[in-house]
């Protein structure tokens, strides 16, 4: 069987590598980065509790507010409105055009808050260790709806899907889909459950031929699911990297994934404990990963999140070294 190798010439350059506050950068750590839909502003989850944003055009950091404890999740709800949640139990909505001010809205959950998602008028927040999940309608703020039936353990990530669906992933290894227009009856609203098998670290949605979901477990496995059939289409472990042309050897952990519609490909970010990032893709058999680009000399510690900006073909990475790095990538294919 003839092997087809990718000898892609992918050009990558580190164009930005900085921490927002040079004095306290040694104790700062970032666990997540999110972007607004236009890619003009990034927001970060900082260990210090400060809500930092980055203006992508000017590459300037600005602070929009702070929490009393480490941030656990951030997201944008509109172009200029972001939401953050923290171990302090607060879910704050910020107007990024007014830095250093109080939040526009502040919601409370029993601490710690683990994750948050916001779409149109709805906000969902996962909290505590036993699968707590609150749901608010911002137009009608009373007590939140308590959706605690779908998870046995902490909900670690929430995502809204366009057609009134809330997808949640938890430490119990379950990915659940709730049809939000069937709420408040949680029993009726629960649509499907995927049992990934191990605590979920992160997941994402992408549209290839059908809607797909990728998920990374805390035991460093990567699964992809076809959401029409709910079947797993691939399973990768850290060791499944085909590293013939790749000097760094096996990756130590998975960071995150992103799908580039132009390339028609799912890119998987793998990391090494020293801070190097390796972008991988799935080989034809889909159970082997092929390294494509190495992004090194940027981070010095574990990289916690990656974000693809399709507007300017760049990747933003954040990590436990308290740094934000931006890499320019130029894909040029050459398969032989």
């Amino acid at each position, binding site marked *: 069987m003839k092997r087809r190798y990718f000898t892609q010439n992918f050009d990558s350059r580190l164009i930005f590598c900085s921490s927002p506050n040079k004095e306290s950068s040694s104790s700062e*750590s970032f*666990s997540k980065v999110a972007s607004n839909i236009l890619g003009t502003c990034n927001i970060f989850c900082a*260990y210090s509790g400060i809500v930092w944003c980055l203006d992508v055009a000017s590459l300037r950091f600005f602070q929009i507010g702070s929490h009393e*404890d*480490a941030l656990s999740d951030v997201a944008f709800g509109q172009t200029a409105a972001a939401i953050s949640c923290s*171990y302090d139990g607060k879910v704050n909505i910020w107007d990024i055009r007014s830095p250093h001010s109080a939040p526009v809205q502040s919601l409370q959950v029993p601490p710690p808050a683990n994750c948050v998602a916001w779409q149109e008028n709805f906000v969902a927040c996962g909290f505590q*260790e036993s*699968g707590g999940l609150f749901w608010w309608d911002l137009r009608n703020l009373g007590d939140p709806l308590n959706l*605690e*039936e*779908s*998870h*046995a*353990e902490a909900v*670690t990530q929430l995502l809204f899907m366009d057609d009134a669906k809330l997808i949640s992933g938890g*430490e*119990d*290894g*379950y990915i*659940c889909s709730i049809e939000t227009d069937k709420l408040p009856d*949680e*029993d009726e609203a*629960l*649509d*499907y*459950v995927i*049992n990934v*098998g*191990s*605590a979920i*670290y992160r997941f994402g949605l992408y549209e290839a031929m059908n809607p797909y979901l990728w998920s990374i*477990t*805390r*035991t*460093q496995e990567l699964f992809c699911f076809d959401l029409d059939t*709910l*079947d797993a289409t691939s399973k990768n472990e850290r060791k499944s990297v085909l590293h013939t042309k790749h000097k760094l050897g096996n990756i*130590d*952990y998975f960071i995150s994934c992103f799908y580039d519609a132009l390339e028609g490909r799912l890119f998987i970010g793998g990391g090494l*404990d020293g801070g190097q990032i390796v972008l991988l893709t799935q080989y034809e058999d889909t159970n082997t990963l092929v390294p494509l680009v190495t992004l090194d000399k940027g981070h010095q510690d*574990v990289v*916690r999140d990656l974000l693809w900006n399709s507007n300017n073909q760049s990747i933003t990475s954040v990590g*436990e070294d308290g740094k934000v790095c931006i890499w320019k990538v130029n894909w040029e294919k050459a398969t032989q």
Partner: protein
Amino acid sequence: MSKLQTATVRSAVAEILKESQEKKRNFVETVELQIGLKNYDTKKDKRFSGSIKLPYIPKPKIQVAVLGDAIHVQQAQELGIDAYDVEALKKFNKQKKPIKKFAKKYDAFLASDSVIKQLPRILGPALNKAGKFPTPISHSDNLQEKVNEVKATIKFQLKKVLCMGVAVGNVEMTEDQLVANITLAINFLVSLLKKNWQNVKSLHIKSTMGKPKRIF
């Protein structure tokens, strides 16, 4: 490179087995691995949790049930495993209390691919809340192997304190089996830590009623 001395593990296991024989209990004692961590910040570092499959089943008395289509139900019955088909599950009529009781009866579930998609609609979220949503099985899987896989999988979770215990075996296993399970579990768990062995403060193994034996 592993900092674990096989000889230390082996002698600790031998001691545990000997002590459990000397003072026999009315139940099969579980052997547990206790991990103490250091230089680890639960808010800064990635959470330490998940499931791993051990080479030998640590707790053989785990009750498994199959929620299957006709083929899987028949295979299960041949193996002496409790099985239920969609019709039987529909009889619950989505009533919470009986479904909760049903979930309590078994430690884990397996379900056919075709059935698993309908489960939330037939049973509601009760299995989720119990932490017992089934593992999928396909027709190409060997049912007995899948059952054994489920029985051999252990969950671990580090919450707010820096120590954690995981069941790795029982006193009726052989020394070799226990050593294999313990070694695999330790090496895997350590590989998930950022600083690997520098994040490990101590390792102990103990049987339910026995004294802890330090192995690192």
